[in-house]
């Protein structure tokens, strides 16, 4: 897959992600309206006298023709998408406690700024804004919701541990994510997953408190009637959608990033013309081992190395494809070394180690 195909595919996926998000919420909203509508109709036809007598609001007052729940949720989803597109990057940075590096003061900060500028030139993308995260574990990520307008964050551990060439390799990898538009898609996924997690927490709390007040009565009415089987199926799927949404978005964010890391490694090596520097940087990052505490799960798939140091990241296979955000470090390093040996061989100064 070449750069342009990758860019086109990322653009397409970003668009579908946003459309899919809105459609999903429309389904939750209008689906709920439809179910409520059907259930209340069952009440009016089957229990004409008793229901009206016992319940003060009554089925007639209960029944709504305007699907206000669907309209509301769809509007919320559209609002969320707009909000994430506008502020997604700053929210991601905020969640990691990154501070912007506006003026480089120390030698190592100046070197970082220089290396970033070099790699931006090599990639032919605008210079990213640079942020620093105070964390001793080496890690780095880029984020941004607009193509090519990027924010690069590195931990203090990364700056301290790597030498100039290795730093260049890591930044080159990140510029690869920027150039092939991975960054945009991955930031959107992080934002939407965060929004869904928030909403799931909120509705969970709402449902629990709702169950105390009036849920029992509603459920009783439904089961008493039995209703038509289609409604039951829709009801089950609808409930499952509510419950599984957070899990689905988490899996999406994992599936989305594994193959991209290999590609970004290759692009980083292409920009620096030095695969070995990235390989040795990755080895150092791997050896550092300690989890990056400043970076939480929701942002993990943006990073150069899994900040949570999960075991599953060290395996290949179906399970890892589902649950790991990063490919095994050993495989990435060996691919980069193979690249380096091929170049050395081509240039004629190959000496087996």
């Amino acid at each position: 897959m070449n750069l342009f195909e990758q860019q086109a595919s990322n653009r397409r996926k970003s668009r579908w992600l946003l459309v899919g998000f809105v459609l999903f919420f429309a389904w939750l909203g209008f689906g709920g309206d439809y179910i409520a509508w059907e259930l209340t109709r069952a009440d009016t036809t089957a229990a004409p006298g008793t229901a009206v007598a016992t319940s003060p609001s009554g089925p007639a007052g209960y029944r709504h023709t305007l699907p206000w729940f669907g309209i509301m949720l769809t509007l919320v989803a559209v609002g969320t998408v707009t909000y994430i597109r506008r502020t997604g990057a700053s929210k991601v940075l905020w969640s990691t406690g990154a501070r912007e590096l506006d003026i480089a003061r120390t030698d190592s900060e100046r070197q970082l700024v220089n290396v970033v500028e070099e790699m931006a030139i090599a990639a032919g993308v605008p210079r990213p804004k640079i942020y620093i995260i105070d964390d001793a574990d080496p890690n780095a990520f880029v984020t941004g919701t607009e193509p090519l307008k990027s924010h690069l964050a590195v931990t203090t551990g990364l700056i301290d541990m790597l030498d100039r060439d290795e730093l260049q390799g890591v930044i080159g990898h990140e510029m690869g994510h920027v150039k092939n538009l991975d960054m945009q898609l991955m930031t959107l996924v992080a934002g939407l997953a965060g929004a869904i997690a928030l909403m799931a927490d909120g509705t969970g709390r709402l449902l629990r408190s709702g169950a105390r007040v009036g849920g029992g009565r509603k459920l009783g009415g439904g089961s008493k009637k039995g209703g038509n089987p289609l409604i039951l199926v829709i009801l089950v799927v609808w409930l499952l959608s509510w419950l599984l949404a957070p899990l689905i978005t988490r899996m999406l964010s994992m599936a989305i990033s594994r193959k991209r890391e290999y590609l970004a490694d290759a692009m980083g090596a292409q920009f620096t013309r030095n695969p070995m520097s990235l390989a040795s940087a990755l080895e150092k990052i791997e050896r550092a081992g300690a989890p990056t505490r400043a970076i939480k799960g929701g942002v993990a798939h943006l990073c150069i190395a899994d900040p949570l140091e999960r075991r599953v990241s060290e395996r290949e296979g179906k399970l890892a494809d589902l649950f790991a955000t990063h490919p095994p470090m050993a495989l990435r390093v060996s691919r980069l070394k193979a690249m380096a040996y091929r170049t050395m061989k081509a240039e004629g100064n190959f000496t087996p180690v």
Partner: protein
Amino acid sequence: MMILFLIVVAAIVAWFISAYNGLVALRNQTWNALKQIDVQLKRRHDLIPNLVQAVQGAMDFEKDTLSAVINARNTAVKAAAGMDPSHVAATAAAEAQLSGALGRLLAVVEAYPDLKATANVGQLQEELTSTENKVGFARQLYNDTATTYNTKQQQFPTNLVTGFAKATPAELWEIEDVAERAVPKVEFRRNA
């Protein structure tokens, strides 16, 4: 029959427009890539007097190395003016000379630990290393873009549009000077 003819004409016109626009976009990218080199060259030209000033007091016995750098810089400044994608060879040659002279100077500086220890020289070294790298990476980008542009101009059927789009081959920025390749590799590492 008439409709078929119109469809064919429309298809040809559509192809012509997209090929023409593709070439124009590539030409602009090539120009832009060259501008990137230009920006970095200017920066390098501005940094050199500072470096020379910082080191000359301590190393008046290395007069030749210093004057070589100054001369090469002045030639390069002249060559960099009015550069365009069809004539980059002269600028490239002048810059290669400058790189060579600068490399020798930095190698000499490396031999004087006292000099290196002054904060100012250390900072200038990092700035110069970075600028050298930026020139290199900008050149890499320019050559890649120019090659794509040239290939598009020559490939069939885009070559039929080349004349209309006023596309001319872009010259690659080559390192011709053997002296530059032979420059001793100067390693700058931050003291951890």
